[in-house]
């Protein structure tokens, strides 16, 4: 086992990170690089434009809307209105697993649909082609829903995808058609697309089916996209403890489940960044409280299950939760005990997503590893500093064009699941309802927090800290590995997973152990590079002595 590493002085690191930048860039970047103090959480500049020319991890609004939120629902035909690329790149690349119940059930996830806009559509408008495409999709597949996603040129040439959707929906009668104005240039990252997707799903899907859902403890799982089968593991645990999952937003989900989701009694939020809007809107319209939970990490899973038990306040449920935790814990413990001696004291860096950089710290903590620096790709200040800062975040030009739906209580369906006094009582028990305390509170003092980390900064950080593992995405994967440091992809999980729940924790421990202790990292140098190339004394005549 390696000795604990000496952590460099973060103030100095911060200076080094921005030293090479032109003055204006340095000034801007310095506000996004913060030395953490969990007691008095400092302000992090987040959700602002990336400086042009900076090599960023970020993607676009369309990616957040179609790729992240809508993509995982299997029975929607998602037509991308635009040139071919946008649909092509989002085709099966996010690993949203899905499991239709029978061979007859719809599953469009392996398909890629596009209007493949051509020059004449840009010049003369693409609405006509879009409507033809919707009609053809309807004739071929007769899906329950068709969603339309606008790409950059669509907004610029003024195609009205919403009008086209309304017209076709009316025409079909038995197919819900709706559009998203999620042009790539909106907002400053994928984040704008999450918000637009939340709005669209809320407006066009949630609440269409009022059939009371069955089950005693009914909840929706928000912000879980079933990458690598994460949702399957959570579903397994829910079933074991007797919790009914009404709908998942949106891993392994169906249109029907989402349309019926307002009949649940609790929303639990995994990825706060991408789906918090949905939690708030369902609270206001239907009276369903939401709670931030985390199923990444064995301890976090147990804690989250207990929170859910506490929320429903049912002794029998609580007992079952304890029984399941007791049943699952030994296998987790056995693996940790075996692996911990090889991982303890090692360091990690996480620069990913809008929630993952927070959640995965729990798994590293369980492995005895320290997160020395972390940051998000597309988060907002509340994901770092907690939702308490929300009222103080000023809306800039890039955010103000993202629609904020005005939601009011539904005159018929609003039904507060908990009374004010019940909510108060839950808060006293330590349950944070409709709240999230953010990532920084959990990170150690003097750890480094960097929003929208650039390529340059990542190389510098690695040079200075020499972490044992770096967590990011595919674009960073081989850059970091060329530096001799293993990179764990936390978008695609390097095609592994699941990493949620108890089984997922075990998978993660094993994967990290394998990665940080792989002998290959010691094989990078050729023997002659270290032994003095060509300076040997000739072959030793070993046979003489043998």
């Amino acid at each position, binding site marked *: 086992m390696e000795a604990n590493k000496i952590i460099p002085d973060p103030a100095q690191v911060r200076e080094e990170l921005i030293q*090479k930048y032109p003055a204006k860039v340095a000034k801007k970047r310095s506000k996004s690089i913060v030395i953490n103090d969990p007691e008095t959480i400092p302000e992090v500049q987040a959700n602002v434009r990336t400086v042009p020319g900076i090599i960023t991890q970020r993607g*676009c609004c369309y990616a957040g809307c179609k790729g992240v939120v809508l993509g995982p629902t299997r029975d929607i035909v998602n037509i991308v209105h635009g040139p071919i690329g946008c649909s092509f790149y989002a085709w099966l690349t996010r690993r949203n697993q899905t499991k239709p119940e029978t061979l007859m059930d719809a599953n469009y996830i392996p*398909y890629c649909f596009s209007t493949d806009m051509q020059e004449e559509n840009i010049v003369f408008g693409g609405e006509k082609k879009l409507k033809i495409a919707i*009609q*053809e999709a309807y004739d071929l597949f007769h899906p329950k829903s068709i969603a339309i996603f606008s790409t950059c040129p669509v907004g610029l*040439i003024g195609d009205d995808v919403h009008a086209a959707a309304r017209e076709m929906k009316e025409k079909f009668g038995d197919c819900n058609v709706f559009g998203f104005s999620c042009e790539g240039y909106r907002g400053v990252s994928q984040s704008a697309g999450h918000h637009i997707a939340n709005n669209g799903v809320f407006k066009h899907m949630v609440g269409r089916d009022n059939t009371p859902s069955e089950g005693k403890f009914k909840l929706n799982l928000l912000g879980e996209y079933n990458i690598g089968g994460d949702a399957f593991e959570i579903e397994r645990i829910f079933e074991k403890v007797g919790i009914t999952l009404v709908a998942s937003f949106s891993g392994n989900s169906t249109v029907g489940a989402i349309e019926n989701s307002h009949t649940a009694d609790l929303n639990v939020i995994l990825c706060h960044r991408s789906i918090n809007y949905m939690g708030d809107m369902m609270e206001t319209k239907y009276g369903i409280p939401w709670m931030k939970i985390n199923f990444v990490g064995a301890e976090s899973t147990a804690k989250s299950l207990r929170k859910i038990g506490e929320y429903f306040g049912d002794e029998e449920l609580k007992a079952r939760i304890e029984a399941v935790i007791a049943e699952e814990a030994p296998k987790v413990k056995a693996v940790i005990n075996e692996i911990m001696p090889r991982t303890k004291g090692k360091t990690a860096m996480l620069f990913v997503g809008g929630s993952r950089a927070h959640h995965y710290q729990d798994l590293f903590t369980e492995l005895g590893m320290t997160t020395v620096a972390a940051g998000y790709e597309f988060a907002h200040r509340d994901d770092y500093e907690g939702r308490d800062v929300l009222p103080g975040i000023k809306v800039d*030009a890039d955010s103000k064009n993202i629609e904020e739906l005005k939601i009011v209580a539904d005159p018929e369906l609003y039904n507060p699941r908990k009374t004010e006094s019940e909510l108060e009582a839950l808060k006293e028990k330590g349950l944070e309802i409709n709240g999230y305390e953010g990532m920084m509170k959990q990170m150690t003092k003097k750890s480094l927090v960097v929003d929208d980390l650039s390529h340059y900064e990542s190389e510098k950080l690695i040079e200075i800290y020499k972490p044992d593992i770096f967590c990011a995405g*595919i674009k960073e994967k081989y*850059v970091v590995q060329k530096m001799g440091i293993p990179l764990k992809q936390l978008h695609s999980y390097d095609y592994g997973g699941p990493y949620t729940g108890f089984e997922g924790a075990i998978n993660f421990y094993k994967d990290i152990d394998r990665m940080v202790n792989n002998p290959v990292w010691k094989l990078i140098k050729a023997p002659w590079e270290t032994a003095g190339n060509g300076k040997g004394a000739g072959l030793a005549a070993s046979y003489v002595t043998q």
Partner: protein
Amino acid sequence: MLLRHTSKEVKVREGLTINPAKTCQPIGAMYAALGIHGCLPHSHGSQGCCSYHRSTLTRHYKEPVMAATSSFTEGASVFGGQANLLAAIDTIFAVYEPDIIAVHSTCLSETIGDDLQQMTKKAKDDGKIPEGKYVIYASTPSFIGSHVTGYANMVTGMATQFAESTGVKKSQFNIIAGWMEPSDMREIKRLAKVMGINIVLFPDTSDVLDAPQTGKHVFYPKGGTTVDELKSSGDSIASLALGSVSAEPAAIALEKKCKVPFETLDIPIGLSATDRFIMAISKVARVSVPEEVTTDRGRLVDVMCDMEQYLHGKRVALFGDPDQLLPLTEFLLDLNMKPVHIVSGTPGQRFEKQMRQLLDERSPATNFKSGLQADMFLLHQWMKNEPVDLLIGNTYGKYMARDEDIPFIRFGFPILDRIGHSYFPNIGYGGSLRLLEKILNAIMDRQDRDALEEKFELVM
């Protein structure tokens, strides 16, 4: 079933593309630009384009793919992207220190009418381009052509913006690489050396996208065509353009600008296309073909003779890009196989004509479609109607192959789930032998898998 909604009945579509056999221009431009030494590709559009292209190329090569973006926001989309591009140029030269920035446009910047020629000129006039450094550009609207078109446009940009004619011819030839892998480009250089000619190969992604693990990330790896080489291409005796879609436009541009005559050839995939490539070098450079090359050829033909019984009449479906499909189809015909269905999303009359001609002569019953709605959905429907023994195409083909239980060979772009394409060539006699080995393995593994116990063969 993964593709459970794909029915046998083929209906004509006019609006909807399903499972495309192409992607958009900018990724091709980004790939081509990586074949210039010391170059940072730059995507002039919103961040998503750059992110998607880098991700796709990274998955295909399992290598760092560095590129920057103009990070358009709504403001830039309304008021034009000039300020973003100028800011980007400043940032890039200060922080990432490339020798060259190769800017390509996107559907966004093209739709709003951003003029890259004017903007890069302004960058130069404003002194934003340091001495001895370059900013080149290519217009690559995503709503025209395909990724192959984008590649061709960036390669053309290299020719028009770097090539100079000094009036003194150099004893060298240009080989303009159509879209091929680093392994293929390395093989072209080896073949030229064996043939004894000096070449300028551009672009050249070998030693860029197949870089060794050294414990250091080299931002600009040692490979790539150098600026000096690109400049000197104007003084070359002649150009050989490998691929009429992806390489010929650059050869035409070079002829126009520097009067370098050219000949367009197929990418040397398979026996006949490699024969033509070797003959063309021999003819244009007036060199005799060395024994070594003839022996290589002999080895390929030897295997074709020895294993012909396993190839004869085997039905193949293939999809991909024009410059690969054409010589690949010809190779399959040389192997006595039957290309039954061929699809390419890349449009183009020239390709259409060339492929039709080849098929009319040697395989008139083949289903072939290119351009709009020539997609994998159609190919799959064709396969359901007229089944095949083998499917050849990029990784997306594995869904069809699994559903239909058909042997599958990964070939083309992108290959997201296997390695090898960047290391081992598919061109030249040796590369064709590798391709043939793959074909034989796929077919013979299937025979082994499906054989009744009493019919299971030891020797094949």
